[in-house]
């Protein structure tokens, strides 16, 4: 122990906080400054592709909370078609199991967008055409490696704060 308890522990701590005064802030100024999220972001919406969907309801069955409501019927050509698909984003936990369950692989996607807010809960329930891909909704690379490659690289704090010294 010896010469250890003379307030030098406090002094050391104070020196460390003082050192941090001259470090770059790690925070970002959110609405103006945006970081790239992961290419596999499980964003806050589910995007459905009507053309490729074979109406097998695998996604609805895979959903742990049952927020996907899908009703199908046989069309005239004996093929299954989707009559109605409704997803309640107020319930959805964005676990991505529906995307994994899809047998065709490109009928259901999670979105790359992660900002989604409504004033009413009822507006969070989307169905049919509202679930389709649009300009405001971008497809995420979750479970879709081909999409993943096209998205911008994620901004990482590990890379962002490194300034020459091993840790800074």
């Amino acid at each position: 122990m010896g010469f250890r308890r003379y307030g030098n522990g406090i002094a050391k701590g104070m020196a460390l906080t003082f050192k941090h005064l001259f470090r770059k802030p790690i925070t970002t100024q959110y609405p103006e400054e945006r970081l790239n999220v992961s290419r596999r972001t499980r964003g806050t919406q589910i995007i459905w592709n009507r053309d490729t969907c074979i109406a097998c309801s695998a996604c609805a069955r895979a959903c742990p909370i049952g927020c996907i409501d899908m009703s199908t019927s046989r069309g005239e050509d004996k093929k299954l078609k989707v009559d109605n698909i409704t997803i309640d984003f107020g319930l959805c936990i964005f676990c991505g199991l529906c995307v994994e369950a899809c047998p065709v692989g490109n009928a259901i996607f999670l979105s790359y967008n992660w900002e989604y807010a409504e004033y009413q809960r009822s507006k969070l329930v989307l169905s049919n055409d509202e679930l389709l891909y649009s300009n405001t909704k971008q497809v995420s690379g979750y479970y879709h490696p081909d999409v993943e490659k096209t998205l911008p690289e994620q901004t990482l704090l590990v890379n962002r704060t490194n300034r020459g010294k091993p840790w800074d």
Partner: protein
Amino acid sequence: MTLKTEPFVINLGPVHPSTHGVFRLRATLDGEVVMDIEPIIGYLHRGIEKIAEGRNYKQDIPLTDRLDYVASMSNNLPYVMAVEKLAEIAVPERAEYIRIIMAEMQRIASHLLAVGSLANDLGTFFTPFQYMFREREKIVDLFEMVCGQRLLYNYMRFGGVSHDIPDEFIPALCKLVSTMPGFIDEYDQLLAENEILLARLKGVGILPKELAINSSVSGPMLRASGVEWDIRKVDSYSVYDRFNFDIPTEVIGDCYDRYRVRIQEMRQSVRILEQAIEQLPPGEVLAKVSPRLKPPVGEAYAHIEAPKGELGFYLVSDNSEKPYRLHIRAPSLINLTALREMVIGWKLADAIVIFGSIDICLGEVDR
């Protein structure tokens, strides 16, 4: 002459800044001295064990995320291990390594939060907390990279993990691993020798070795009391037997020892990560498993050394798609058993610190 004092009952929580969730501590105080406490829990009880019986095996994975929500990766792991044990699924080697990388990163992240919030309970105005969140953020960034979310990962699957790690993951992880020891040194510089912190933590809330074992305490708490008991070593699972690492233990079992154990475990985790990156083999990450998994009739118990202690899943299968019974051995709940013995006789401020040093997560306590 003695003054007659009247004990009074005070409710710490359920909404209180340092109960780390919705926990209620009914304390009987004599002035500032705690005479008796009664933990009252259940405010976050969601009946996860019951919900799990109503869903199929795969749908329960996102549910396990919600146990200890600051260490979701570590919750996924024992559950998938239990199912793999039950259904006898072999896991590819690369997947085992990825799982360990994730579990160890999660351990660092969880301990950072534990130490940071302990410092907060001590009254440092969020500074150590902020510094530790910086590193936690880096780890969470990497988790986001592999599985797309920052809190509830839902990453492990039966027979592996859901995705292979992306190409840019390993360089970023290397960078993290190489800088992490420096940051841990900084935390030590900030906290470990601080006289006020020492006065607040040393000798406070001592949990003797015998009592710790008797109370089924696990994880850093048990090791701080001087028991060299780490599931990774004593009941080695996954590929932990291929790594060199030590089990940090302390002697007395006070709050400072628990803090020290956590700090040192972070260093050991960094060591494991370094080795895991080196040894990471190429190959598949997910074995072929039927989506409608029906394990044979039987039962299995798989446990891991989660950041908070021994986290185990006891599964009973009746050869249907859904588990017949899922029991979670939650370290947070069982560690709380020892709280009463540790707190009584200390001051109110110490009670908060002792509670903070246990490091519980209410999602796991109440389930």
